[in-house]
């Protein structure tokens, strides 16, 4: 009988080939990583790497790294400053009740051993941030070995318990389901931090996708803050970096991941601030220059019932936008005009779009019926009151 080992090897190798994962998964990944140049650390990082080394060698199951950053250094204008306005929060992608203060929001981002989800995907790094004493406190929890998950989760649980709202970038469908799974696996309990959740991915996508193409955090950093990441570890390599770290325990392997996570959280907060700035500007009549963004905000204002701001944004989007966008927003814009008793203008706009032959047959049907209704209404208005 063949050696068991070589037979399993054949099976495992075949599975790997079949899924085109050679060189990425498992043992083969080790080589990929060791031949890859390890990104250099940024300012202050050597000390962190030292601390990490200490934690790992002292046999602690996990380490916590804390940084405090002044709000001014982050360039924050709205977020983290002053009171937290419930309507503003709604524009930041809120699901659930609005938190009363910025300090009540827990900003978070996880690094995981895979993207597939499910019970075998571990969260090995949880970065959280919150506002305290005029600073952003960033705390990163790094699990040194997935075998000691329970203690890791227990500590984090205690730390995040006071928060009832969280903010994330795509956390609704990625980070939180994974955390919930880890909570069940380690503690058999529920995680409560996401009762209110600000998922910034959605507003960011609405505001900027059209303009920047992608709305990944990295892209937003480049486009909004003009700061490119030069030495960032690509997200796809993070799981393997961690598996490599599990075996080698070399802090230099995991340092770039900590750096990546810290940047993601800081960017998350700054992106939220930019969304808030755009909202406040539009409220005071300065709608975004970019028409699709103005349109997105208009809709958001409609949802929060801020109709004047919605009107300003629709108007701006209509004038700056191209014809397809005009068609898209015309019916809603006409409704706003009608509300402001500007039936004439609403009619003129609809008729022009129809004359230009724009829109799908279905849209034209709706537009024509709107024109008929508006025409009737105009006649009523023109008739002298009897």
């Amino acid at each position: 009988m063949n050696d068991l080992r070589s037979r399993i090897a054949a099976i495992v190798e075949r599975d790997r080939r079949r899924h085109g994962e050679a060189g990425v998964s498992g043992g083969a990944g080790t080589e990929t990583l060791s031949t890859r140049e390890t990104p250099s650390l940024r300012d202050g990082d050597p000390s962190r790497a030292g601390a990490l080394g200490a934690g790992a060698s002292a046999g602690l199951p996990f380490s916590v790294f804390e940084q405090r950053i002044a709000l001014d250094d982050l360039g924050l204008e709205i977020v983290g400053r002053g009171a937290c306005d419930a309507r503003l929060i709604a524009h930041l992608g809120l699901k659930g009740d609005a938190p009363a203060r910025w300090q009540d929001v827990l900003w978070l981002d996880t690094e995981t051993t895979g993207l597939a989800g499910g019970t075998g995907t571990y969260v090995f790094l949880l970065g959280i941030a919150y506002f305290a004493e005029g600073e952003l406190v960033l705390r990163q929890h790094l699990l040194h070995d997935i075998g000691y998950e329970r203690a890791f989760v227990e500590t984090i649980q205690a730390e995040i318990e006071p928060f009832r709202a969280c903010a994330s970038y795509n956390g609704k469908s990625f980070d939180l389901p994974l955390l919930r799974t880890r909570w069940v696996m380690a503690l058999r309990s529920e995680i409560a931090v996401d009762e209110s959740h600000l998922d910034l991915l959605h507003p960011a996508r609405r505001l900027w996708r059209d303009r920047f193409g992608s709305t990944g955090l990295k892209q937003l950093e480049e486009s909004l803050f003009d700061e490119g990441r030069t030495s960032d570890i690509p997200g796809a390599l993070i799981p393997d970096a961690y598996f490599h770290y599990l075996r080698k325990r070399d802090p230099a392997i995991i340092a770039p991941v900590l750096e990546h996570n810290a940047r993601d959280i800081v960017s998350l907060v700054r992106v939220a601030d930019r969304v808030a700035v755009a909202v406040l500007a539009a409220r005071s009549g300065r709608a975004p220059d970019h028409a699709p963004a103005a349109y997105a905000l208009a809709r958001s204002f409609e949802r929060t019932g801020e109709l004047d701001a919605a009107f300003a944004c629709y108007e701006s989007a209509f004038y700056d936008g191209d014809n397809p966008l005009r068609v898209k927003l015309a019916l809603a814009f006409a409704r706003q005009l009608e509300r402001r008793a500007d039936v004439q203008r609403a009619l003129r706009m609809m008729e022009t779009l129809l004359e230009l032959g724009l829109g799908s047959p279905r849209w034209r049907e709706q537009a024509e019926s709107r024109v008929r209704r508006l025409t009737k209404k105009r006649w009523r208005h023109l008739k002298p009151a009897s």
Partner: protein
Amino acid sequence: MRTNVRFPARVSLEQILDGLLRDEEFQQMVTRWETIAPRPARYAPFPEWLDGRIGAALRRRGIQQLYSHQAAALDATRAGKHVVVVTPTASGKTLCYNLPVLDAIAKDHTSRALYIFPTKALSQDQLAELEGESTDMDIELKTYTYDGDTPPAVRAAIRSAGHVVITNPDMLHTGILPHHTKWVKLFENLRYVVLDELHTYRGVFGSHVANVLRRLRRICEFYGSHPVFICTSATIANPEELARHHIEDDVVVIDESGAPRGAKVLVFVNPPVVNRNLGVRKSALLTGRDIAATLLASGVQTIAFARSRVQTELLLTYLRSRFPQPQWPSNLIRGYRGGYLPSERRAIERGLRDGSVRGVVSTNALELGIDIGALQAAVLLGYPGTVASTWQQMGRAGRREDLSAAFLVATSSPTDQYVVQHPEYVLERSPEAGLVNPDNLHVLVHHLKCAAFEIPFDARERFGTEDTPGVLAYLDEQGVLHEAGGKYHWSDQAFPAETTSLRTATNDNVVIVDTTGPAPRTVGSEYHDGKARVIGEIDRFAAQVLLHEQAIYLHESKQLQVERLDWENAKAYVREVKVDYYTQAELAVRIRVIDEFERHTANRGFDLAHGEVLVSTLTTIFKKLTMYTHENVGWGKIHLPEQELQTTSFWCSLPERVVAGWPKERIEVALAGLGNLLHGLAPLFLMCDPHDLGLAVEVRSPHTERPTIYLFDMTPGGIGFSERLFRSYEPLIARAREHLDSCGCRTGCPSCVGPAYALGADVRESVAHLLSLA
């Protein structure tokens, strides 16, 4: 036999059978006309502990008492014992598990049950039935199907609120177990697991399922529940053994049916020999078509079972041409097989129940307990391969208490000829055993990875094999697992459950894409909306034979020609054509022995062994054969890469002295003939299809250095057929002699050693000579 299909005479089944009995031409084909007497019911009262609402509701439905086997099942589950119920089709097996489940939920609202059905279609039926029962009983019961078709929006509700979750092994494997933390309520309160149609969980699929169940039990353990398993099975020789493999615990077998049975006529039909020299019989397909047409023309609702997808489609085409439109309604006869869309299948099932569909041509897909109501007659085109399947398919007719009929029409294959000439094989013999090999290393390692993904492995834990620690340590070394604190954790990015399908041992299928444009005459049909659409998928091994370029692939009796096969990306692009031929690919097989597990010298120096082999297959050419006469009208080349299969094989090599002095050609012919004969008869000993076994012969094997016949498992890693053959060699040879002696041909025919015109004029004689020396 006369068939008068144009003018339907509404005659009863009794009259048709009477007519057939007096039809001399038909009677010449009949090898056995068996009438099974009706059997009265045996009853037992409702158990006292059963919730009052359940009994009351059953009485309202006219059920005053239980059948004896139902009561026995209830008592056993009540005592916390695992149960396997083995009774015929339509004996009320469903109540055997629905009643304990309903009772548990009536008494404790937090109780949960998991129903596992082999196919989606089955679960649809169960859902309707269970919902009907619980409404009647005034028990609040939320039942949901959770499978690939479940919309994401309702999944969350099902996970927390469903009392009974109905699913299939595939969904359990990829959708539920790896996400068990979302199912906390279910796993914490799981009282019952229902495994319906247990006999289908055999072979590769069964070996996978047994491992999925190991994972399920691990997860239940994690959440602290200990569910009772209730299994149902068709009649097989080893229900207890099979259930033990799946449950890995003691099982109570309940196999005395208390249900009544209507009178039934079973007819074994052997189509007449057309050419005695060539041993060619009239096609079973045509004979079966005539019987089915006779029944259908008289309004008898009939099901015809074909052996393969191709045959299903051919028979459908033939029957439809017998009942042309507009004189006959368009959906009088429908096809039904794997590869049809779920919506199509549902429509056909409905049509069968409400009677608008009068006939259906099916592969074994409908052999399972899908509720299609009471059909009156079944026509089996060819022996279904196992005694168990034969009874299942015959049982499709006559689910109620009235007269029904089933016809088994034999093809000229060796198994068919054996069965039709020895009908007692089906009627008297106990059926085959369901074989599984959950410890097949290929299968086990895969599921062990899935299990580690689900819950970290304790270093002392056992998963099937005793060598679990060895496998764990190996996977740790490979970086797939990570050992820490005495536990092995999953440490890979991949989602292991998605890398293997349970249905095939190799996990990639070739998808069939129909690129036919819109055709005015079929507007409204699901196929031609002007876009390319996926109409089915086939595993790679079958694909090299069925989907090579220029192959004619049949779907819903449409002929589709493969225009392009994208082997890399596993896609076959087909377009509808109208031609009068079908295609058949030829497969070349090479074999290399890797490891010999066991060896033994049988009578007179015949050497037997079984072990591990590497089989290489290559399709090189295909033939075009005319539709009705099967004449060869052309051929073409196939350019596909060689396929490799590592599996287990049984082999038998002849001693030098037996063939001493034989010319090489004679050895070749004799070996090929004996190989065909053994390959044809081997399924009689295994619960398998002839296609599950591969055959290769070598005049001088590099391994044994002698003339050798190989019979190998078509499944990577093997599932135990070869070892079974190794141990059944004596009876196999005995049956081969018996079959060859009684075969009506002179020089060799497809029913025994193979056609003499293809192999050599002396094939029968040389095989007989060999057998006399064995």
